[in-house]
């Protein structure tokens, strides 16, 4: 810790200095990691783009059809070219960001929260609870996400929120399993036994000691999930279980472009690029955050 205290300081001052210092410390380390910064910048860029999409290109441009200008190559008028309906692909990608990013973030974070809580408890407590919960998860992960999505849509009707529910529920088992394996390793550490010996409550141990130590795996897993969620949403909406046309969404743009892959590759290229860049940015920022948060990594 480079926050060395040269002069004698009162107890509280030290604490404040310590806390504020830790955030400054994390930010300092993050700033040093150029790639993570680029990632953060790109993520903010996408979010801003999604929010102010309307100002950049009106939504109408993304939905008005022009049969005589179909599958046009990118020109300066249509930066990304046009899709099978003659609609401006750039506008569709822009307005698609709003849906895709929200799906990607909401489901990834929801899965992360639910997954890590269950995973931590199951990995730490073990015994009967571990068996029951893990077997229940085995049941859930056996159900294909498509069937689950159909059930959710049949019960609660279509729509973006229901799709997020369907995707989240089907991806929680995988996440729990990963967190559990990380927690199994951590629960064996001596300092955990020390806390237990010190009479700290299980909940406090879990959230103050166990999970922070699994933060590396959590972040990596969550960031990896984001692109996966966007693509799963596309598969579901392609089966008629999610976002209805003409609402643009990155995943369905890629799937629609698939048919013209050989004659008009730009239809798959640009939305695919968007998904890659978004998940690349999020993952790289996640990695940078992971390294910055890890106190032992003094480079």
């Amino acid at each position, binding site marked *: 810790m480079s926050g060395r205290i040269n002069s004698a300081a009162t107890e509280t001052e030290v604490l404040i200095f310590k806390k504020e210092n830790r955030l400054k410390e994390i930010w300092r380390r993050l700033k040093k990691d150029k790639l993570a910064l680029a990632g953060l910048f790109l993520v903010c860029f996408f979010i801003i783009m999604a929010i102010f999409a309307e100002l950049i290109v009106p939504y109408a441009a993304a939905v008005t059809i022009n*049969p005589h200008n179909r599958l046009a190559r990118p020109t300066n008028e249509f930066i990304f070219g046009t899709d099978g309906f003659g609609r401006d692909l750039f506008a569709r990608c822009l307005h698609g960001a709003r849906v895709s990013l929200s799906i990607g973030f909401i489901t990834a974070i929801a899965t992360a929260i639910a997954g890590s809580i269950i995973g931590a408890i199951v990995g730490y407590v073990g015994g009967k609870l571990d068996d029951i919960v893990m077997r229940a998860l085995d049941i859930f992960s056996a159900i294909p996400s498509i069937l689950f999505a159909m059930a959710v849509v049949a019960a609660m009707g279509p729509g973006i929120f229901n799709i997020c529910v369907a995707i989240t529920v089907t991806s929680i088992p995988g996440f729990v399993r990963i967190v559990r394996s990380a927690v199994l390793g951590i629960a064996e550490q001596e300092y955990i036994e020390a806390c237990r010996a010190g009479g700290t409550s299980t909940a406090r141990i879990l959230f103050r000691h166990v999970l922070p130590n699994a933060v590396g795996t959590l972040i990596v897993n969550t960031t990896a999930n984001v692109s996966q969620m966007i693509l799963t949403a596309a598969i579901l909406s392609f*089966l008629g279980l999610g976002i*209805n046309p003409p609402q643009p969404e990155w995943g369905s743009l890629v799937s629609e472009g698939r048919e013209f892959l050989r*004659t008009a590759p730009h239809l798959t290229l640009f939305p695919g690029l968007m998904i890659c860049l978004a998940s690349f940015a999020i993952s790289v920022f996640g990695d940078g955050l992971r390294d910055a948060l890890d106190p032992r990594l003094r480079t």
Partner: protein
Amino acid sequence: MKKINVTVALLLVFSMFFAACGQDGTGDVSSEDRTLRLSTRAPMTTSDPHGTINIEDLMVMRQVYEPLFRQNELTGEFVPLVATDHAISGDGTVYTFTIRQGVKFHNGDELTAEDVEFSLQRAMNSPRVRSYMAGVADVRAEGDGTVIVTLDQPNAALLSNLAFVFIVNKREVTEQGEEFGTKLNLAGTGPFRFTYLVHDIEWRLEAFPDYHQGEADIKNIHYVPIADLAAALIAFESGSLDWLIAPIANWDGLVANPAFNTELSIGNHISYAVLNHLNPPLDDINVRLAIAHAIDKQAMNLIAFDGLAENANFMVHPDKNVGAPSEGVTYNLDLDKAREYLAKSAYPNGTHVGTINVSAGGYFERMAQVLQDNLMAIGLTSDINRMDSASNLERGRNQQFDIMTTGFSPNGDFDSWKMYCHTDFRGTFYNQYEGDVFDWEHMNYLWAKGVSVADVAEREAIYRELNDWIMGTATQLPIFHRAGAYVWTAALNVPVNYPNYPIVYEWSWK
């Protein structure tokens, strides 16, 4: 670093091995017994011709089994196969078929009238093909040469329906019993017979030497299921398939390629929009007429089918179906007229017409989005609900929808459109005309009259009136007839491509 070199070495070995293994099948086998390699979009579900109505299966069944008469999909004319001739009684309820003599089944048995009687009765009891035997009261074999089919009421479309009922060998079917259809059988009379059948992986046919019309030119056929169109096209272009119904998107590239023969033929199918006359604002005839004139068929054709389809004025294609009228009430793009009707309607400055339901996947989705855009042009807003086919079908059946973009294939006779209008077929159609909105009894009367008359010109007149009646309701709006894009290797000689079911018997190697 040593670890990484190992991985790189491994990948190198892989790629070298790639280059080593050659390509199977394109060797220059003598053209005489070269194998014809075809693909279907889904694995064959059954080898029982009475156990399926799905197109993928029927493509194979057509080569192995034969009906009494086959109807030529393009000309509508009937080709005698198992039967040589037929006679219809005065009141049109008794059909007498004379059975061809000397026809052999693939298992060597001689075809008898009893086999025909057994097959027709079996079809009547199989839920999947029962609808083709609609109206048939009794089937009786008389002696060896004739079979008598009696109807409870006249049905001129019987021959078109019977073209979908295949004749099987009674002994083979009864012997296999419950297992019939789940494995290889020799119960057919067609030009090819099964030699190898592993349902999900591959099925092979060979030319039947004792075929009653003479042995086929093509000696062997391999069918392989390829669900993905892009993969099938790549398989064709890389030479491991000889004939394919190609994806529309790559059509120009294929036409330009000298190594391939290509043919584009308009299919006997109609893609159309359905308006539910029970749900306001669609209960207002002027709104429906406005919509009818707002639909841009050319835009639909361009976007949904790359311009290769044929814009349609009639639900049933006049040249491809017996009795189909070629004149009558039609609607074409005319925005002024559309706005006129809208002005006369209860919603002069536009309204929200509801939801367009469509099954996910396929070009119907694209039609829905074009329709939405067309309606926007005259101030009618709508949204689209893309559903999986099961729920879409359910909604359609119970008339829980506002607008739908869908399609169906008539089977060669105008009467086959009846399933989508006649009130008896409650389970099949989307528009239930029964009720106090329309004079539906008159429509039913016309349907019944149409089939009770044998003379084609007379039938056409009746069906013209019927067509005008239905088009008048502006509930079923024809948009285009989709095209079949056929491509085959130059070494293959394909005289004609039928829209749905190729007849390999007519093909030959160059």
